[in-house]
């Protein structure tokens, strides 16, 4: 039985979404260059989770790796979505912030390191509350400082997506790559339903959720710079391309006038439907 060409391409591709955080970092870096820092055998685990009867992971859910991208020195921080929803605690947050701060130090010494964030996170780890939030603030500050020297490239692919304080980290990145399966937003659907009620958003209505915060919608409205398929090779290529194209230009988060104009165009009493928002907030207006 012959396979239709489209299906053959689908079957030949390696899903990025299905990879673990470590596998993602290995695949994104140049082949054979992955070198992990503060890895599982260093056992930097959360001191807070066992106190709450929660099993720790030896890397606290964040993989930091040095390697190269097209021969240029690079550092990849990859969040494991399967561990505690990719949530950011004291240790995992310190690993993320530390990696970016070291890259900043290197950039300041004229040895730029290309930073890549592979995000898959519900945001702060509630069991570690303020310590996680403090770490996320450090991540934000480090991205803003670092992107003056070198583009900071982020990927949100799914299935978790990127929420809470870490959605701000994605928004601060110089270049954001998403898939159609990605979701990006300050509050996740469950939180919105819990706080705003079922009339505001049905957290089980997947089509509705993706129409509002899915990767395609975020790309169409200019909040992401590239929309790629769930294909490891395509994502690795998009990361490389981002460093070639993201240099220069005003970061999205500093385009305050354009963003303010967007808000002014919205009547909060009658918010636009997702399709209308694509016209109202066309990506050309922001990119």
């Amino acid at each position, binding site marked *: 039985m012959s396979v239709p060409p489209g299906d053959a391409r689908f079957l030949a591709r390696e899903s990025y979404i299905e990879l*673990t955080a470590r596998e993602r970092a290995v695949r994104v870096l140049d082949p054979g260059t992955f070198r992990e820092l503060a*890895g*599982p*055998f260093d056992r930097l685990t959360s001191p807070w989770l*066992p106190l709450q*009867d*929660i*099993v*720790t*992971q*030896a890397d606290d859910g964040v993989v930091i790796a040095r390697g190269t991208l097209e021969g240029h020195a690079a550092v990849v921080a990859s969040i*494991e979505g*399967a*561990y505690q929803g990719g949530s950011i605690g004291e240790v995992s947050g310190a690993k993320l912030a530390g990696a970016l701060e070291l890259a900043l130090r290197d950039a300041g010494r004229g040895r730029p390191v290309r930073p890549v964030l592979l995000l898959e996170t519900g945001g702060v780890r509630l069991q570690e509350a303020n310590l996680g939030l403090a770490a996320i603030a450090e991540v934000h500050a480090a991205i803003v400082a670092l992107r003056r020297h070198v583009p900071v490239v982020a990927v949100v692919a799914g299935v978790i997506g990127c929420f809470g304080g870490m959605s701000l980290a994605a928004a601060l990145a110089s270049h954001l790559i998403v898939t159609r399966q990605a979701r990006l937003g300050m509050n996740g659907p469950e939180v919105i339903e819990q706080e705003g009620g079922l009339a505001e958003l049905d957290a089980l209505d997947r089509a509705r959720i993706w129409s509002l915060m899915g990767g395609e919608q975020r790309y169409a409205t200019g909040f992401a710079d590239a929309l790629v398929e769930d294909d490891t090779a395509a994502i690795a290529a998009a990361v490389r391309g981002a460093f070639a194209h993201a240099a220069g230009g005003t970061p999205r988060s500093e385009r305050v006038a354009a963003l303010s104009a967007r808000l002014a165009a919205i009547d909060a009493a009658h918010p636009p439907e997702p399709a209308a928002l694509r016209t109202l907030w066309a990506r050309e207006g922001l990119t």
Partner: protein
Amino acid sequence: MERLSFTYPARQAVARRVHVGVVGSGDLEVLLEPSSDAQAHVAVTTSVDGFATVWQHVLDRFFARFDAAAAIEINDFGATPGMVLLRLEQAAEALRA
């Protein structure tokens, strides 16, 4: 959460470290490294209490065919016995590779 430990006799030395798996729902991570003595040691931390006997059976079965002097740490998030055995076999395979 429960912590369990097991010891098995060993005959071969372990030359390297291996890490497989994720502490995700129904999954576990295995950290395997050289043991400090001539025995194999397993330290299990599991989110599910009361299954020490099942852990004993699963590990007995694994060590019936594995005789390396490894210090194995398992961080488990509710994996089934079959999943535990698969992850251990994966670690053993990575050790041989």
